């Protein structure tokens, strides 16, 4: 809120000052790092605060990824719990206006990252030319804001079609979910307007992301989604609701995260992640450096480490996320790759969700609220 141009003069002058100060410190740190780059660095007091989504995800990071990073670089990682992407942006925004932030690197989904770049003043640009390992990543995963690269891809995930294999056979298409004979009051879908159900509808019945270009297109998508309502018993807002729903048998199918579904299946719960012919929506997280962080050099090293094919493979094995580079560049086996990724991938209409957010949200909420 208080980073915008029309703010009171005290606030708007405060931010550039902070930026300049941070810039000087950052520049100093980078200069120092490059000057002493060839010497062993005194490692004990180098630390970095890294945010990741709490729960199983963060635990796996703490157990498998951060120790490997510390071993490789000598930089200790202090793990910071993020509830999710959007909530965290609100927290970081408020913290930035208060002058101190809880994390140096945060993990943001693409839409949240674009939003942060549009709000302005929250993220520092990352000099990817100095991080050769980022060349491994598909350029789509290096997000260019106005001031350079603002986010480097960390890992990717799929929102999959999931089913209870004890109750039903895997549908060949998302369109099967519209069949009331089979699915009356049986599905669990996400309640949030931007959680990819509209992207699934667009890929299944319309022209994909292009459908979002017009308001009529959006209304058509929402109306098609409305036809699912008799089949939905759980409109979940928290991930754990869907987890419980699948475990309890309250729902026999729906949309859920591919990685978590695979883990639940491995624990013996009746859940199977399916790639129907239209595919599943792919999302990804990016490492973004807070503009108030004084640990730019450490953050660069972390991003360099995260972009290595070996780290990408480590995350796929230990956390279940999809790598951001081709399978051939990693040492993942076909089975390992298949358990974290799949084809085809539906790319969400990120820009439309932001440019028309009020319209899409209210049209969506009206659809849910009707009858």
């Amino acid at each position, binding site marked *: *809120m*208080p980073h*915008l*141009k*029309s*703010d*009171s003069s005290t606030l708007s002058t405060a931010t550039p000052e902070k930026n300049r100060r941070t810039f000087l410190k950052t520049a100093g740190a980078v200069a120092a790092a490059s000057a002493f780059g060839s010497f062993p660095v005194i490692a004990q007091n180098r630390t970095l605060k890294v945010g990741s989504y709490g729960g199983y995800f963060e635990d796996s990071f703490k157990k498998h990824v951060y120790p490997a990073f510390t071993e490789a670089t000598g930089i200790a990682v202090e793990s910071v719990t993020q509830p999710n992407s*959007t*909530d965290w*942006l*609100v927290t970081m*925004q408020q913290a930035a206006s208060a002058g101190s932030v809880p994390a140096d690197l945060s993990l943001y989904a693409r*839409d*949240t990252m*674009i*939003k942060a770049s*549009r*709000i*302005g003043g929250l993220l520092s640009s990352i000099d990817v030319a100095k991080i050769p390992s980022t060349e491994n990543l598909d350029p789509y995963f290096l997000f260019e804001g106005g001031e350079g690269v603002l986010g480097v891809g960390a890992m990717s995930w799929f929102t999959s079609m999931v089913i209870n294999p004890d*109750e039903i056979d895997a549908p060949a298409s998302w369109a099967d979910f519209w069949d009331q004979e089979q699915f*009356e*009051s*049986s599905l669990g879908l996400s*309640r*949030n*307007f*931007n959680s990819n159900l509209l992207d699934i509808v667009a890929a299944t019945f319309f022209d994909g992301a292009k459908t979002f270009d017009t308001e009529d297109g959006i209304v058509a998508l929402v109306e098609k989604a409305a036809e699912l309502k008799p089949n939905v*018993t*759980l*409109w979940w*807002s*928290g991930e754990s*609701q869907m987890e*419980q729903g699948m*475990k*309890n*048998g*309250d729902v026999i199918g729906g949309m859920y995260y591919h990685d978590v579904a695979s883990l639940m299946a491995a624990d013996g719960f009746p859940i199977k992640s399916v790639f129907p012919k239209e595919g599943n929506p792919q999302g990804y997280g990016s490492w973004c450096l807070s503009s108030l962080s004084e640990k730019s050099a450490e953050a660069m090293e972390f991003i360099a480490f995260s972009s290595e094919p070996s780290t990408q493979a480590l995350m796929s094995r230990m956390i279940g996320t999809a790598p951001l580079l081709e399978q051939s560049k990693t040492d993942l086996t076909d089975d390992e790759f298949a358990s974290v990724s799949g084809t085809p991938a539906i790319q969400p209409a990120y820009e439309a*969700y*932001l*440019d*028309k*957010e*009020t*319209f899409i*949200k*209210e*049209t969506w*909420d*009206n659809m*849910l*609220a*009707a*009858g």
Partner: protein
Amino acid sequence: MTTTVGVESSTTPPPGLAPPQRRLPLANTIFCVVVVSFCIIPFLLVIAISFGEKIEGAAWRWSFDHSNYLRFFVGADWPDTRTTLYIRRLWFSFYYAIIASVLAVATAFPFAYVMSRQSRRSQTLWLVFLLSAVSLSEVFVVMGWDILLSNRSGLPMVFKETGLTDWLKTSGWFEVLREWGLANPRNVRFKPTDFATIVTMSYLVWPYAVILLYPALARIDNSMLEAARTMGAPPLTVLRTVVLPSVRLPVIGTTLILFVFLLGSYVAITVFAHPSRQTLAVSVYDSVRGATMNAPFGAAQAIVLLITAVLVLLIVWMIGRRTEALQ
């Protein structure tokens, strides 16, 4: 306001009373600072934010924009289309809070009455037990009811295992339940329903209801009840003519407190209420913390909820005064 007046008057005390008064200004100042910094400033901030302007695709900026209040009544797309979405959510806030608070008081009353007639020792034990029940958070209570109403671990399982589901299917009642949204093709289901929402919300405030009713009920003199009974009044008549009139005000007061408390209920609503029947509290949270980062619209909804709640309380208070005057 009254506290400010208090400070001013106490700064010019009559000379003889100076020593005991000297401590009062300090207490008053602390009180003022607390009220101003923890109540008035945040409240003014919410009002100021509610006039902020949303920037599509980003967050918002300070402004003096009435469109958030307009949106509440007609929607963002007005005048092209018009929606009563938010008014309906306001209605559901009141709908759940009123029914759940009345239900809690109605069921807690007999319990509190019987409890207040027990021995000292057993009263104390019950109160300790209820106070510990109060410490359960909303999340915990909702989780418990969620399990109790789930397909594989709760009531639907009981229906299935006892053969009740099969009986319903053969008798034709199952189709009726499906039409009412209380069954899927496989079994009965209780989530999401108004039933689950209201039961959980009542359960949540039930210990408060007992604790709030208990002092008034405990004060009723046993000899009055005995006198009524010796004069031949049956127990129900005693309840109607002696007990209820003497606790009329505490009962209304308790209901109102629980009602206000439940207006802000969040977890129970998100878990048990169908999205078509969710409340303004959920909508406020969605606006402020959700992906749109629309704090101004969230603040505007909160203010409308607050104003409506104050109006309802005022109306109840006025009706109360009118009936008292009539008596």
